[in-house]
């Protein structure tokens, strides 16, 4: 039997667990409400409580593309900076830690399976689950937008929108695996991830007090930690570029660098490579060294 089968067996074990957790259904329920909010309520109330008012900013807005903007708003607005954390971080936070917390790691690691297979099997399952969740959320926003605003266009961009969303979520999952391998406590992982997010918000508050409101507002899209992480490798690829950093601020879609699908994909791919691989490999290092003392 190939070693892939062992990895897949671990992924199945993980999936069975996720499908029986209340938390998974709570998050799916929250996603449904979010889809209603971003797909229907945000355009209906004129974009209040978001950083991207679609109808009253003077920015060119195409209602037929609201399904894309709805997803963007969900991921870029201040209040919804929690969004990828909620989905990616919270779903992945207890994947390794619960095994240590409840000592189920002992029978698992006592099987003829390497720690790499356990780790990669678990992450592979998160990959599939979060891909499904990303597609589901995008689909829900699309359906709600279609029902509330009218016919939506450019549906062929669906995979790309899902890909961007999925990348942001998956980075939180990857981060959760790293922190989980390091501290091996579910509550500590959630605390650290939440602390990271609010640390960024705190920094923005300090910036606002020091330089005025506009400065931190210009950082809003990257305040979402997933964006922040993805932008760093982009700055290496195109040092002079400012890309989408300004894109979602208060409806001013005025990027300094023309964003093409190709360049966007470039930076996301580079970002994913760095921001997924680095925490994942660091997590694997700590997981392989972890001792089961309990």
């Amino acid at each position, binding site marked *: 039997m190939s070693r892939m*089968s062992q990895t897949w067996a671990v992924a199945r074990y993980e999936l069975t667990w996720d499908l029986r957790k209340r938390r998974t259904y709570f998050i799916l329920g929250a996603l449904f409400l979010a889809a209603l909010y971003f797909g229907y309520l945000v355009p209906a109330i004129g974009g209040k409580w978001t950083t991207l008012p679609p109808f009253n900013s003077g920015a060119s807005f195409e209602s037929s593309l609201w399904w894309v903007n709805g997803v963007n708003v969900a991921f870029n607005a201040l209040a919804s900076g929690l969004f990828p954390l909620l989905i990616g971080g919270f779903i992945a936070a207890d994947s390794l830690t619960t095994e240590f917390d409840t000592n*189920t790691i002992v029978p698992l690691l006592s*099987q*003829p*399976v390497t720690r790499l297979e356990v780790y990669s099997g678990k992450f592979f399952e998160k990959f599939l689950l979060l891909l499904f969740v990303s597609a589901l959320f995008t689909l829900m926003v699309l359906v709600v937008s279609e029902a509330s605003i009218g016919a939506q266009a450019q549906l062929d961009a669906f995979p790309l929108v899902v890909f961007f969303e999925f990348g942001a979520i998956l980075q939180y999952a990857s981060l959760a695996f790293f922190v989980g391998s390091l501290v091996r406590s579910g509550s500590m992982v959630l605390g650290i991830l939440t602390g990271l997010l609010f640390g960024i918000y705190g920094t923005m508050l300090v910036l606002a007090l020091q330089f005025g409101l506009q400065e931190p507002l210009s950082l809003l899209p990257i305040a979402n930690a997933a964006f922040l992480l993805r932008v760093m490798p982009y700055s290496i690829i195109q040092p002079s570029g400012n890309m989408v950093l300004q894109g979602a601020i208060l409806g001013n879609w005025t990027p300094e660098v023309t964003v093409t699908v190709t360049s966007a994909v470039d930076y996301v791919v580079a970002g994913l490579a760095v921001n997924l691989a680095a925490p994942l490999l660091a997590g694997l290092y700590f997981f392989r060294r972890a001792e089961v003392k309990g």
Partner: protein
Amino acid sequence: MKNLVKSYGPIPGVWDVNLAVRQGTLHGFLGPNGSGKTTTNKCVMGLLHKTSGEIRIFGEEPHGDAIGLKRRVGYLPELPSFPNYLKGREVLLTYGRIRGIPDKTKLLEESKALLKRVGLNDAAEKTVGQYSKGMQTRLGLAVALLGEPDLLILDEPTEGLDPVGVIEVRELLKTAVSEGRTVLLSSHQLSEVQQMCSSVTVLKEGRTVTEGSVEELAERLHGGIIYKAEFDSLGPDLMNDLKRIDGVSAITTMEEDVVAILMSRDYDVRPSLARLAVQHGSLLLSCDREEASLEELYLSLVRESD
């Protein structure tokens, strides 16, 4: 296993464990709580990284990724823990898949047979969360037996079981040995080890104190003779004098005026007992000479080491 050392920073977990288990035997691993049995087992299973020393199973070093070797080893941890959302049947199927049992039909049959073998047939459809401690131990035993391993490392396998369960598990282990498997049995129930094991290793404070066959051990440990003596009356002065008899290793009060005297060598103590009884105004009513149980020898050993 030679000179195994496992320390947690400056704190020693075990610091000189030597253990040799002959293939096809049931070997007891004895020691008081905290003596390092579980730490040793975890080092063997690659769950803890040894600090120094040598471990070999079937000639191979059992690090965490030694897949071929781990396929030949079944491990029952102390107080095994399984995901509480899985049903008993699902636990075996899940771990069987992870274990690499490729044939689905074979896995289904093996799981069913193992659940029956450990007495969980009727609880196969209950979730682990509904299992008692004893049921979880039985389930752990079934998981350890998955894939028909050559070596079973069992950490307190009768812990939490009712008397019937204890007997069933003992029978199961005897069957495993009769099938040619090797069993390393950690247990604090010395009588169990004496009853079931052909050889034993005694651990104390992270060190191997002694090892050998149960018979050899009895021989090595002071002759292994015990006298059970009943006196007309047994006051503290007489008790103190009994302890001073040459060759007495330990004295345990069994009931009022009855003591068990463990001898450190095969020396007939009866004349001395009768003489001392008379000196203290008492009488020696009866005195039986017996082979000491492993428990008595073990207690003597631990006290002696102190």
